[in-house]
């Protein structure tokens, strides 16, 4: 397959279509506008349906309806719009519905700005809506990886009947990179006996009830038992992480998304100065790769850990939990700031080394 220069947002939309997504409900918000724009042209070409909703709240509820009807469905937005969708996402999680939600993170809080940011980690990973639930959260660091992850995201959503969040940032959305796009004109349709597709009394298919209300405590308890079992299975089988140059490293960098690419450059800069630095890059932010982080950091050679984020330190908390005090963990990053330069990261490592 030939490489094609594509803009992140458009590549994501095309990859979703190749993954069998035929329904998209969205709303304009920078920096993810090219996703609904692209979908509005392409989905009708593949017999799908694009609809611009009156708000992000309506959009996520249209996703609830379409997913409950058995379709592969997606929505996308950016930070403030994702905040509006939180009740809907919690409801989708409770109704055990599959869907994919793309968040092109931008500067926050409030209207913030439209630059790349990683300020929505807590919202995505810890569950931004009410109640105990987990969306699967995937954080790609390149356009190609995002494209590769779309098929996986829809499969995970269907297999575990769970919302899957693609946590990208404005950079991935607005950059252009050469990508190899999968070609999958008629993707396999998963059997969804629970979906609302019509009900014949006495027939073999059960009546569909797409619902998140469990008014009796015992019933809500049954739901949580089922959800916990699902989450355990996901944590056991679906963790994705990249460990880069960590064997015998003196320091370990932890970063995700586009920041992790800058960290790789910092690793090379440190190597030029004879200091071996490794990088642990969580790809699934939930389920979080706790063990991989711990194993890399626990090596005798490792003196310390530096987490780098474009935020005031959110994933850093999960890194500290994973490290569990066996090595010192420091943080580098500032909310609303630009993506850090490799040189600055390398310099910080050198300072840690001297300390």
């Amino acid at each position, binding site marked *: 397959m030939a490489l094609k220069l594509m803009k992140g947002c458009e590549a994501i939309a095309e990859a979703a279509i190749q993954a069998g997504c035929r329904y998209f409900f969205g709303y304009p918000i920078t920096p993810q506008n090219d996703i609904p724009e692209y979908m509005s042209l392409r989905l009708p070409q593949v017999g799908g349906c694009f609809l611009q909703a009156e708000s992000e*709240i309506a959009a996520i509820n249209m996703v609830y309806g379409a997913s409950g009807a058995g379709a592969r469905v997606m929505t996308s937005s950016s930070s403030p719009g994702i905040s509006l969708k939180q009740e809907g996402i919690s409801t989708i999680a409770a109704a055990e519905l599959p869907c994919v939600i793309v968040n092109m993170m931008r500067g926050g809080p409030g209207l913030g700005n439209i630059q790349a940011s990683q300020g929505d980690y807590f919202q995505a990973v810890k569950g931004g809506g009410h109640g105990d639930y987990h969306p699967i959260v995937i954080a790609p660091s390149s356009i190609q990886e995002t494209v590769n992850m779309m098929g996986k995201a829809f499969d995970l959503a269907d297999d575990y009947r769970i919302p899957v969040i693609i946590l990208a940032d404005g950079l991935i959305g607005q950059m252009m990179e050469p990508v190899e796009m999968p070609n999958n004109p008629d993707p396999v349709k998963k059997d969804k006996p629970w979906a609302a597709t019509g*009900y014949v009394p006495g027939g073999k298919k059960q009546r569909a009830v797409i619902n998140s209300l469990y008014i009796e405590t015992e019933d809500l308890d049954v739901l949580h038992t089922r959800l916990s079992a699902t989450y355990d299975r996901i944590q056991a089988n679906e963790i994705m992480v990249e460990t880069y140059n960590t064997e015998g490293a003196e320091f370990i960098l932890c970063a995700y998304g586009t920041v992790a690419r800058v960290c790789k450059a910092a690793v090379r800069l440190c190597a030029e100065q004879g200091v071996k630095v490794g990088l642990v890059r969580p790809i699934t932010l939930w389920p979080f790769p706790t063990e991989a982080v711990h194993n890399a950091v626990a090596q005798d050679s490792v003196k310390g850990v530096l987490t780098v984020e474009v935020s005031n330190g959110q994933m850093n908390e999960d890194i500290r939990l994973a490290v569990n005090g066996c090595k010192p963990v420091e943080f580098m990053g500032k909310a609303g700031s630009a993506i850090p330069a490799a040189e600055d990261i390398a310099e910080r490592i050198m300072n840690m080394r001297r300390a």
Partner: protein
Amino acid sequence: MATIFKRTSVLTDVPFHYCPGCGHGIVHRMVAEVIEELGIREKTAGVAPVGCAVFAYNYFDVDMYEAAHGRAPAVATGYKRVHPENVCFTYQGDGDLASIGTAEIVHAAHRGEKITTIFINNAIYGMTGGQMAPTTLVGQKTTTSPLGRDKDHCGEPIRMAEMLATINGSAFIARTALNNTANLNKTKAAIKKAFEAQIAGKGFSMVEILSPCPTNWGKAPGEAMDWLAENMIPYYPLGIMKEV
């Protein structure tokens, strides 16, 4: 002897949880009968959001969704876009449709979404214990307008049927009431027309139904029906507001 009135099989045999004299049970029966009479039960899905009718999935023996407060028209849009050949209805109260869900219902009509909305206007929030709704009448006492709704403080009640009838995407909009047999018959006829407008693909359809809430109005069921006739019908004129 022939049976001339019997419970439709489109209703499950789960007894309604509604209060004695509540209008919901009456309208549930009518909607279920219309679904049976139009022969569409196998391809019909209903969406009931938060409100007294949130348990409608226990009562209608068709595919059912329970939706977040105010969002049923959006959920129904999602369903209908996936199954355009099927029939979809939302069943919403006034707190749901005329307050938190105003944007969703207006835009469903604006898009000419081919869904049918059954809108129960009982001028109050029932499930949560009798608070003022956008449809609460001026002077009407509720738990959040204890001295009676004051229009200078929080405006006058909203007439949804008229509002939605101005939107081009609306194909059939009517308002009926439940207070006597004649109006009961008109209500069922309107519900049937609304579903027929959907099936014919004409666009969005809605029936606003003035319905009693004895418990939260603090009236016996019969008195509630009389109060409805004397106070609600004058403010909410009955009839077909739009028919394409």
